[in-house]
């Protein structure tokens, strides 16, 4: 059971400002059914440019509903310049506090607010900039970098709690860690720049290296090598010709093929021979 503050429970059981505003000045929609929570935020301005009315609709857990309700209360009577300064931390502190695992609910509120403001200002919906890091929840490197910077996050778990990234299959954990490391070491001397290859680029480069460097060398001894598959950083190959029957083929594989590929493609590669 979650430890919710009285204020969270109150805003969950008696949510303020539920509903839709007809002809709103700003609308922001975030989240989806698949993700397990979603929020639509509406606001209307008075003639002085202050938020006269705000309403919301939320699908989600108690803290998602409470965060949305709190947000509508917080922004009423403020100008857009004032509300654009509201952070997810502000929403959480308005409610007393949120369990760490539920911080993404406050982030969802902040995101909806930003979208509603851009909608009002007529800004084109910002194209998803950057690269999707977490495929399960569609979170980009920019979202993660921002959460890490603004909330001073230091672990993958923190990132998951705040923006959900890494909470699904877990394949992106390495990339998330890289982002955390790069934010934390921003003030330190810049690390050696490692060029991240996409999968296609990596496979192409592996093929090229095999053709150009490795095969000619093996052929000198009557051997050959065939690329079978690339699975993440594992490269599956088959030894051909004299290599196939050579007792030293494992040594060739590790000391020559693998080290050549590591040198020319990526340092984390592992070469394995296909299982018979």
């Amino acid at each position, binding site marked *: 059971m*979650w430890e919710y503050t009285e204020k969270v*429970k109150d805003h*969950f*059981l008696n*949510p303020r400002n*539920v509903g839709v505003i007809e002809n709103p000045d700003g609308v922001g*929609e975030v989240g989806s*059914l*698949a*993700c*397990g*929570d*979603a*929020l*639509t935020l509406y606001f209307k301005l008075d003639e002085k440019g202050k938020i006269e009315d705000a309403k919301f*609709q*939320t*699908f*989600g*857990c*108690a803290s*998602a*509903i409470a965060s949305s309700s709190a947000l509508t209360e917080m922004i009423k009577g403020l100008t857009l310049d004032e509300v654009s300064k509201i952070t997810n931390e502000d929403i959480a502190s308005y409610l007393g506090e949120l369990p760490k*695992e*539920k911080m993404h609910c406050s982030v969802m509120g902040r995101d909806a607010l930003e979208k509603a403001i851009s909608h009002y200002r007529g800004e084109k919906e910002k194209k998803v900039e950057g690269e999707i890091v977490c495929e*399960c*929840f569609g979170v980009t490197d920019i979202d993660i970098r921002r959460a890490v910077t603004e909330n001073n996050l230091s672990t993958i778990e923190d990132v*998951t709690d705040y923006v*959900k990234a890494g*909470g*699904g299959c877990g394949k992106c954990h390495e990339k998330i860690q890289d982002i955390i490391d790069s934010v934390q070491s921003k003030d330190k001397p810049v690390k050696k720049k490692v060029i991240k290859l996409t999968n296609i680029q990596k496979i192409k480069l592996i093929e090229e290296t095999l053709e150009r460097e490795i095969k000619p060398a093996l052929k000198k001894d009557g051997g050959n090598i065939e690329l079978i598959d690339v699975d993440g950083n594992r490269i599956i190959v088959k030894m051909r010709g004299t290599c196939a029957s050579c007792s030293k083929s494992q040594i060739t594989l590790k000391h020559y093929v693998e080290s050549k590929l590591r040198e020319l493609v990526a340092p984390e590669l592992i070469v394995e021979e296909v299982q018979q």
Partner: protein
Amino acid sequence: MKPIYVDNNATTRVAPEVLEEMLPYFSELYGNPSSMHSFGGNVARMIKESREKVAKLISAKPEEILFTACGTESDSTAIRAALISNPDRKHIITSRVEHPAIKNLFENLAKTGYRVTFVPVDSKGLLDLDYLYMHLDDDTAIVSIMWANNESGVIFPVEEIAQAVKAKGIVFHTDAVQAVGKVPVDMKKVQADMLSMSGHKIHAPKGIGALYIRKGTKFSPFLIGGHQESGRRGGTENVSSIIGLGKACEMALSDLDQMSTRIKKMRDKLENTLIKTVTNTMINGDREQRLPNTTSIGFEFVEGEAILLMMDEFGICASSGSACTSGSLEPSHVLRAMGVPFTAAHGSIRFSLSTYNTEDEIDFIIEKVPPIIKRLRELSPFWKNNKCE
């Protein structure tokens, strides 16, 4: 507020009769069953009786019952024993919908070099038997398939599976924590080598479980120490809990008829009324091959944690397969394995009944739940004009 407890697949109340039998072993009857004096020996005699009661519930022999600390320990003991007994075999099979006690153990073993086959289920939660049989081979050390699923209540045909697995000379284990006490479990019919059960699911206390080990099965202890449990589990016996488990098994046997009659009737009334009065609602899992006390209902376009907390305001205790309740971000692995659509998976609620539930309680739930769903749907952006968009 008196709780209306319909979360009996999570845990059950200790039956007053069970508690009563246990109490003397916390005070005057504190002897060590291993002692030579009759003060301890009397306790050993009571443990023997308790073992007989546990065995009787599942039609086993008393010497085939090993007392453990919980269902998880029973599972770990069984799997590890099978692996140690078959050191040359590196393939293990289980289903995709097991309890974490098996699921996480198998995932862990996968990291230590075992090849793991996870057998899928269909949209009704029924096991793909062909897939299972297809993957049995000479390298398979153990097959572990649960008897009944804790979330959906779906029952697997363990009798048939055990026969097929045994025919290939492979060890078969079943996690029957949810089945024992709810449906007949007869180890004369089901040829499983090992079976796990747990006390706190059948009105015994938490902290006691048992592992059935068929006579002749190769075994290797998990807890190494004294000669207790015929050398199969070191450590001084948890006497009072063992006495409690014995009493609980005795009661479960005599209450078994109630499960398929009175309790099933209440469960059916609960789910039939809810799916009729609340639109856009579905039952997760096959409705025939299912435990008589369990229903998992998916309320579309609402989120499970919110439903649970609103029910909690009325003292109704249930559970959910939604992401938010577990602290993870995805719905339970069971609902995902069944391919329950996201619209319903996030709003899935499990009600699990016991002999202590009453008709009045069911009526109370039937009265309180529909307005809760209505209220949450009114909050939801996916719900417009009383239907989904």
